[in-house]
């Protein structure tokens, strides 16, 4: 296909890798009923991106620092289960989005909010792909511990597994992938990229194994469809990727099992 041969193929490869890592993470987010947390989480990145731009450093580091802090914030709330996590995450993370919008210099605002596929360096693309691959492998390695925390936390602890540290590791990987993905789909939509492929995969998968594989494939398919649409029509790639994911989700509803 023509668009694959163009100068955005590098970005596409890096975007694919990030999306696949997001698809793998999404499986656990959906199972833990953290869909909205993930969505709101990506908004926290915006003030970080803004600070990066203002200080003249790579916005990725600003975004990751803010996401990293947000992850510990989520952990702290979860420990005190009497607090309604949805409301607090929603309010605080949306507030940080508002602050980020005011902080971000206007020329960069659109890119920060919705991403930009087109200007990534060779080194940047390679690093993005490598880190994403590392996240997928890391997730496979801790998938047993994570599933224990989700389906049977007490049984995991009786089996003497380090379920707590695996969950922390999971959240850090989430922060990393969201920070990486912001380059492609922006702070507003990156959280959604971890959720939609997994939500769609859950509709058609019969086993957990299939759930993981299909979620990763759906994430990759969203990026390919979205990028192609952006290339041929000139629309923003980030929203096009997300809408492709939504389209896949709608298709899976037809096959949904009870």
């Amino acid at each position, binding site marked *: 296909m023509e668009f694959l041969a163009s100068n955005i193929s590098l970005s596409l490869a890096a975007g694919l890798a990030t999306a696949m890592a997001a698809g793998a993470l999404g499986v656990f987010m959906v*199972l833990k009923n953290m869909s909205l947390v993930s969505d709101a989480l990506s908004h926290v990145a915006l003030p970080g991106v803004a600070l990066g731009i203002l200080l003249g450093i790579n916005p990725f580091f600003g975004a990751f620092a803010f996401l990293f802090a947000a992850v510990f914030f989520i952990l702290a709330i979860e420990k005190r289960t009497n607090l309604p996590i949805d409301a607090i995450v929603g309010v605080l993370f949306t507030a940080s989005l508002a602050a980020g919008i005011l902080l971000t210099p206007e020329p960069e605002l659109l890119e920060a909010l919705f991403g930009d596929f087109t200007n990534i360096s060779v080194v940047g693309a390679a690093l993005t792909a490598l880190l994403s691959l590392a996240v997928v492998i890391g997730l496979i390695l801790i*998938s*047993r511990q994570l*599933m*224990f925390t989700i*389906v*049977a936390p*007490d*049984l*995991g*602890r*009786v*089996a003497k597994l380090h379920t707590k540290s695996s969950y922390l590791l999971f959240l850090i990987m989430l922060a990393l992938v969201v920070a990486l993905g912001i380059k492609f789909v922006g702070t507003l939509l990156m959280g959604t990229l971890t959720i939609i492929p997994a939500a769609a995969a*859950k509709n058609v*998968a*019969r*086993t*957990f*194994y*299939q*759930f993981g594989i299909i979620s990763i494939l759906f994430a990759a398919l969203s990026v390919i469809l979205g990028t192609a649409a952006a290339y041929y029509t000139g629309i923003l790639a980030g929203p096009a990727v997300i809408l492709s994911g939504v389209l896949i989700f709608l298709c899976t509803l037809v096959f949904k*099992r*009870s």
Partner: protein
Amino acid sequence: MNQESILKVENLSVTIDREEILKDISFTVMPGDVVALIGPNGAGKTVLLKSLLGLLPYRGGVHWSPEAKIGYVPQRYNIGKSVPFTVREFFLLHERSFLFSGGKADGKIIESLALVDMPPKTLGERLGHLSGGELQRVLIAWALYQRPNIILFDEPTAGIDVSGEQTIYNLLHSLQDRFGITIILVSHELNVVFRYATQVLCLNKSLICSGEPQAVLTPEQLQKLYGEPTHYHHLHETEGSAANPNKIN
């Protein structure tokens, strides 16, 4: 510590959020015992089990024999109906290689399921699609997978209809007969406790009474424990009624 005991608990106390849930609990469990924990709502039965498993911080001593291999069947188990997670995958949590075990563990899983009279085809079923009774059996089979010699059951029959309850208890009883497994169980079924238990611990923050069922399950002791007149013979007649003080959640 007594050499023969499988578990010895000494002056166990548990405080959660500054509230003392358990106070000075001491008892000994011998291999082959069937120990029943009874007591009213909020008496600390689940807390006691969790403390024994090391899931909650406690003061005092919990001494497991080095030979003890512990299995645990929790009280609650929540998995959504729509979660794609099969019975096979649930058992594979026991295996280090988890989803990459490649069918190696299937034989052992089927063996464990057979112990609770579940057919091999259960392997491919979703956990969320099992009925309450089936899930309870799968949880027991899951606890038996590593061939424990002591099992801790937290209300083995919570949320199961009466006929299901009977079979679960028959099952426990047959496991006990066949393998001599030591059992510690929380129960609200005083009839069953009377029939199967070798030792009863009455719990209401502290140990109110303990001993053989014939000695412990007297109207006087039960009144002391539950705070109002209770007799185990009446339990099945009032099963499920709000007036039943022994229906423990």
